[in-house]
């Protein structure tokens, strides 16, 4: 029974991975990755990692993929330009590199000195991989990594906001802009970034500049 589930999930995971790479439209790539993550969660369940499987489905396939979908629909498909002549050769080089990498990994797995690799794993102990056990480990043995992870998430959130915020004068097609270009709910000359950069001036400042 577990063999059947394993093969279905493994084929789903690999097909999803191929879909991510092969599909032309980034939107479908994201959907293929969702399928891949769900199949992977089934594999995690087979390996008795209940909590990680649940987190995978809720956090990864749920939240992170929704973030991706938002950005894909914001940016749109976008038509890529044709491959340069050198690009086709580089594609062959990439395929060769990937094949070499897989051969190396296969040799590492097959030639491994680990005897337990050919077994079904250690005997199952009740409670292995349950939320209770993971939570206890996170709050005792791994408290420091847990806290550092929360700090890392905070830094990443702040960094993303700083990177993606709207800045004045950052588009390449910047013509001289006048105040009418800015669709802003704020009244003019109330301390917007555009004013700070100097593209919007009060009448007094304009008179100053002309002197």
């Amino acid at each position, binding site marked *: 029974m577990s063999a059947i589930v394993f093969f279905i999930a493994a084929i789903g995971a690999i097909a999803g991975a191929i879909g991510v790479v092969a599909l032309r439209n980034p939107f479908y790539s994201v959907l293929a990755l969702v399928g891949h993550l769900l199949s992977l969660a089934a594999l995690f369940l087979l390996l008795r990692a209940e909590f990680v499987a649940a987190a995978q489905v809720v956090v990864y396939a749920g939240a992170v993929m929704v973030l991706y979908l938002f950005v894909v629909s914001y940016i749109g498909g976008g038509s890529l330009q044709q491959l340069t002549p050198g690009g086709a050769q580089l594609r062959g080089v990439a395929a060769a590199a990937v094949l070499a990498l897989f051969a190396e990994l296969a040799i590492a797995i097959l030639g491994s000195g680990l005897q337990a690799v050919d077994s079904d794993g250690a005997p199952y102990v009740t409670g292995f991989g349950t939320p209770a056990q993971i939570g206890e*480990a996170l709050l005792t043995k791994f408290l420091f990594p847990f806290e550092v992870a929360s700090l890392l998430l905070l830094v990443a959130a702040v960094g993303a906001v700083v990177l993606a915020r709207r800045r004045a004068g950052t*588009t390449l097609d910047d013509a001289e802009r006048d105040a009418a270009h800015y669709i802003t709910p704020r009244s003019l000359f109330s301390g917007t970034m555009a004013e700070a950069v100097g593209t919007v001036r009060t009448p007094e400042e304009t008179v100053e500049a002309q002197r």
Partner: protein
Amino acid sequence: MSIAWYLVVSALIFCIGAGGVLVRRNPLVILLCLELMLNAANLALIAFSRMHGNDDGQIFALIVMVVAACEVTVGLGLIVAIFRRRLPIDVDQLRELQG
């Protein structure tokens, strides 16, 4: 199923992800392929955790998921910033780091 099967699946997914990073030119898809590689590593970690009957590997996998989420937010922020500047969303054409 023996642990070796899971490791083979993990190796395959990792190689597909690495190939995608090398071949695709849309930074969004490259980020997706990075996710594939991180997930392959997670599968290997959890397989070894099962092999030893020790759940430290599962904690490691959770931390990898946290790091992946951070990488996604920063990466998507960069892509949105690129889009705002009307630059091409194509890694072959993005060659300059200067602002």
